[in-house]
């Protein structure tokens, strides 16, 4: 290319190619169309809206002052149950997710069909909400903590399994090849080659999911799967709003404490 040519036709600088701009424009267009479509057809009953501020004020007035005497009677035991449900559910999820993650990781399972099958399990687990998992397990095992633990575990498989599979795929090949060269068995490869590499992210994922599961298990009781949600559901259906307020405040406090606790641990292990 000669310099003369450049001088004649000044170059125009563009951040994006024509295709990129077209794609972006299409996204904007689809967004606007989708929002307009949703806003026009979603069913909103305006009569309900007129007294909304009044209802909200009424709600908070009925909540305050909290019924503190209710805490030792019903809330404390339910809170401990929630804690156990979240922890057991997370541990069970780790156990169940490990084989699925191994199946989904492309460097361990060299079969495209099996990879896809594992990914399908992970996506299904994630797309069904924990509350819906709880509905199913309540129908099978009856109301109680067992259904809650299983709901938490099945919802978490997708999350834990996906992140674990990614961690396994990122593992370096060097140590694995070294072990292979010594004639190590597949089990030793996993335990001495992969596990030390993914262990930090394994515990980080476990901690992260436990934090989420504490929140989730607090509401599972709404459909009868045990924990503090059962107390919440009872207070709601009896219209004891001062008890509802107390339970919400307790959930808020626990979530804050757990968040401080997990971020402190995370800082120490990472």
């Amino acid at each position, binding site marked *: 290319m000669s310099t003369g040519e450049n001088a004649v036709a000044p170059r125009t600088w563009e951040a994006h190619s024509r295709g990129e701009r077209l794609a972006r424009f299409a996204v904007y267009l689809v967004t606007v169309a989708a929002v307009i479509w949703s806003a026009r057809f979603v069913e909103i*009953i305006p009569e309900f809206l007129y007294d909304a501020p009044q209802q909200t004020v009424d709600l908070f007035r009925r909540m305050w002052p909290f019924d503190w005497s209710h805490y030792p009677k019903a809330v404390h035991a339910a809170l401990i149950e929630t804690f156990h449900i979240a922890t057991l559910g997370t541990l069970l999820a780790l156990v169940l997710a490990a084989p699925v993650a191994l199946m989904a990781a492309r460097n361990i399972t060299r079969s495209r069909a099996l990879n896809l099958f594992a990914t399908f399990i992970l996506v299904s687990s994630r797309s069904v909400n924990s509350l819906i998992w709880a509905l199913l397990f309540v129908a099978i095992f009856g109301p109680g903590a067992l259904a809650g633990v299983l709901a938490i575990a099945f919802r978490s498989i997708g999350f834990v399994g996906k992140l674990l599979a990614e961690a396994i795929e990122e593992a370096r090949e060097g140590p694995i090849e070294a072990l292979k060269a010594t004639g190590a068995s597949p089990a030793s490869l996993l335990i001495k080659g992969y596990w030390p590499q993914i262990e930090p992210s394994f515990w980080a994922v476990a901690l992260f999911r436990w934090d989420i599961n504490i929140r989730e298990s607090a509401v599972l009781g709404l459909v009868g799967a045990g924990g503090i949600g059962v107390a919440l559901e009872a207070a709601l259906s009896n219209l004891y709003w001062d008890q509802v307020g107390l339970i919400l405040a307790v959930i808020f406090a626990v*979530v804050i404490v757990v968040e401080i606790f997990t971020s402190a641990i995370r800082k120490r292990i990472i």
Partner: protein
Amino acid sequence: MTPAALSHSRAEAFPANWLKRIGFALLFLYVLYAMSTLEITWERFVTGLGHADEFFGRMWPPNFEATKLDLLKTGMIESIQIAILATFVGVLLSLPLGLLAARNLMPEWVSWTARGTIALCRSFHPIVVAILFVKAVGFGALAGILALIVASMGFISKLFAEAIEEMSLKQVEAVRATGASFWGVLVMGVLPQVMARFIGFAAYQLDSNLRNSTMVGIVGGGGIGATLFTAYQRFDYDFVLTILMAIVAIIMVSEIASGWLRKVFQ
């Protein structure tokens, strides 16, 4: 040197970590203790498996009757509308809230107030927020939309604020040095650096709102969750299975779409 002496001089390849073993043992003991307090027993599990057989028998085959499919379609469309509106409004509100919460752009008292608001939005499960909104604005899609807006604000603003805090300040200073106003700095210095990530978060949130909109119906927030809960309470388990299959399918489609969206804005 004898072979025995040679092996002594080497460190053991995989030394036992007793601290870790004790940790695992304690974890195991905790599991036993927690299971006993929750009254989770093997017999209960086995009895449940008997029920599971019956339950799945009633679920299979999924119900594809035309009237049921109509119900499914109405519920699903409402869920999608709830998710779209909640994401749109949530994203619009998160943009200023995230900016206010960024500690490198705002004075301390502003960022702490914004951070407090975000923490409040995040700490309640969307279902609890939905219960409160159902009481405030009545049953229906609006309560669900409002609940998911709160959830979106909590999630997007937090990540957005973190993205702004991680950005390079050099470009901001360069724009500032030209004498640009606060808005100029924002539009030319800050947004170009963080917009791609912001759109990534928004795409992820659309996904997550779609997932959650299948759930807010259980407490009266409209959408497919309401259809599902009604079917469940009427023991129409075969229709429940149809709805679950539809939810999984739509989430898969939306995951692919949001992956594509992220690619467009990279």
